[in-house]
């Protein structure tokens, strides 16, 4: 119990630091003589972590709560990014409008592909969505007004602070959305679908509507992250907007953190992204780091399949018994 308290305290302090530290970089704070707690690299990493918190949390809504493991969520990210690109660069309209339109475009796309694809289950759904994710990127890569293979440039906005807070806001929105969903009738419906879809249907859950709605919410949140990324990075193309590595990462983060929970994807996104960032600078050793990351993932999935949140969540102790029990309960 005290471990849990301590974990909350540490998490609270860390959150306070993350929210307040960037303020030391504004001019007024510097003139007042406050120590600079953040630099360019700090902002880059923190913004990236927040971005993955959005994506992992959004994935959790369809993959974790509803039980439909989508492998194509990167399409929503890319569509959000390109919506921002079109609004800002092609149409010359303000970025704020892109922030509104991006989730709508992504959600509309989720309805169109969701209605046919959400009839599939398990591996079939996974493979079909993977196909969609790759296909959308390829299509965008061949449309001339979208810059085709060259990509799309957005006017550069130099403000680390702005993009950090935007992404942090999106992350909080994603976490809050999950929290609210889990407390409503809608959330219970999603859980029922995950646990047994036919049983859910015969007790009166409109399964098609619920699944498509969950997919839409996930898409909208991911689309917002995409739009912010586009303006932040000021350059988008198939490789960075529809990155397969992002697609895989958001799923791993949600799974390692703990699917179906509010804070699991957050914990997963923070820990995994920090590990990746640490290993990235390794030079020739980075190959071994990559292998190490792979091994870590395998170990996590086998021994703590309910995620680190469950593992450190107070319900369990660091013991062999915990490993044995989860192994027994989660292996078919």
């Amino acid at each position, binding site marked *: 119990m005290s471990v849990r308290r301590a974990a909350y305290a540490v998490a609270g302090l860390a959150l306070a630091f993350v929210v307040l530290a960037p303020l030391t970089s504004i001019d007024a704070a510097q003139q007042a003589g406050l120590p600079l707690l953040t630099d360019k690299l700090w902002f880059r990493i923190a913004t990236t972590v927040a971005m993955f918190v959005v994506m992992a949390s959004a994935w959790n809504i369809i993959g974790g709560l509803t039980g439909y493991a989508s492998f194509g969520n990167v399409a929503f990210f890319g569509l959000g990014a390109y919506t921002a690109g079109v609004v800002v660069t092609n149409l010359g309209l303000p970025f704020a409008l892109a922030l509104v339109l991006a989730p709508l475009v992504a959600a509309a796309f989720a309805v169109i592909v969701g209605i046919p694809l959400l009839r599939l289950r398990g591996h079939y759904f996974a493979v079909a969505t993977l196909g969609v994710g790759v296909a959308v990127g390829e299509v965008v890569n061949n449309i001339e007004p979208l810059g085709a293979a060259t990509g799309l440039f957005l006017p550069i906005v130099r403000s680390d602070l702005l993009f950090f807070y935007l992404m942090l806001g999106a992350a909080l929105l994603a976490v809050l959305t999950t929290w609210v969903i889990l407390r409503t009738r809608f959330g219970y*419906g999603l859980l*029922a679908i995950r646990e047994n879809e036919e049983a859910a249907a015969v007790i009166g859950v409109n399964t098609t509507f619920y699944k498509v709605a969950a997919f839409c919410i996930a898409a909208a949140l991911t689309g917002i992250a995409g739009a912010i990324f586009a303006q932040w990075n000021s350059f988008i193309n198939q490789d960075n907007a529809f990155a397969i590595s992002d697609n895989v990462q958001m799923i791993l983060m949600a799974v390692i953190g703990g699917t179906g929970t509010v804070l699991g994807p957050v914990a997963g996104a923070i820990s995994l992204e920090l590990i990746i960032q640490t290993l990235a600078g390794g030079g020739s050793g980075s190959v071994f780091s990559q292998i190490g990351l792979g091994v870590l993932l395998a170990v996590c999935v086998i021994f703590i399949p309910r995620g680190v949140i469950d593992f450190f969540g107070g319900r369990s102790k660091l013991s062999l018994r915990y490993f044995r029990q989860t192994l027994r309960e989660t292996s078919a």
Partner: protein
Amino acid sequence: MSLLAVREVSKRFGGVKALAGVSFEVEQGDVMGVIGPNGAGKTTLLNCISGLYRPDTGDIRWETTSIRGLAPYRIARLGIGRTFQIVRPFPSMTVRENTAMGALFGRPGARLQPGAALSEADTVLDVVGLGEKRYYPVLRLTVPDRKRLEVARALAMRPRLLLLDEVMAGLNQVEIEQALEMVRRVRDSGVTIVLIEHVMKVIVGVCKRALVLNFGRTLVEGPPAEVLKDRRVIEAYLGQRYARDQER
């Protein structure tokens, strides 16, 4: 006007005709038993009524309207609850939460909120005799208790018609008595029941009428005591030779 009318319903899976024109009616307050050998089409019939399957031909009427081909959730909200022969609980939830799901989604009119649904679940769990185990995770329940939970979840919807698919299968004598008592309580509360059962004691003990299916067709329909003595029924279950020997 009958509560439920099944008219000439047939359903085919590839070359197998699971249902080949079954007709029957259920009156308000009836307890109707559906029996028949394995593969006779009993569960297929229930799946057609609850909307999991769409009948190939024929019609299913609920009071005055046709419910053929309606989505399962719509049929559920009309007031038709069902259980599954192979139990399908929501495994990560407690007994109480499982039951509350029925109240949360199955009510035709009122949209209950989670809190109200949970207290409704408490009432229903007492009816089926799971009151003391309401905080158990379902994975800790025994088979008879899981069957009770299926019934509880369906009852929480406050259905007007309850379809029970072999809720007594695999139970011992004492458990069957308890389950029979439960079915009677449900009947007395005004719920119309259609139940599939292999345990003849149940059919005789609680049903007003029995419908015998064989190869997807109605073989005999009538009061249980008469139906079970019918030569055609004995033939279907035990073979022609056994039926002949019995008559001698």
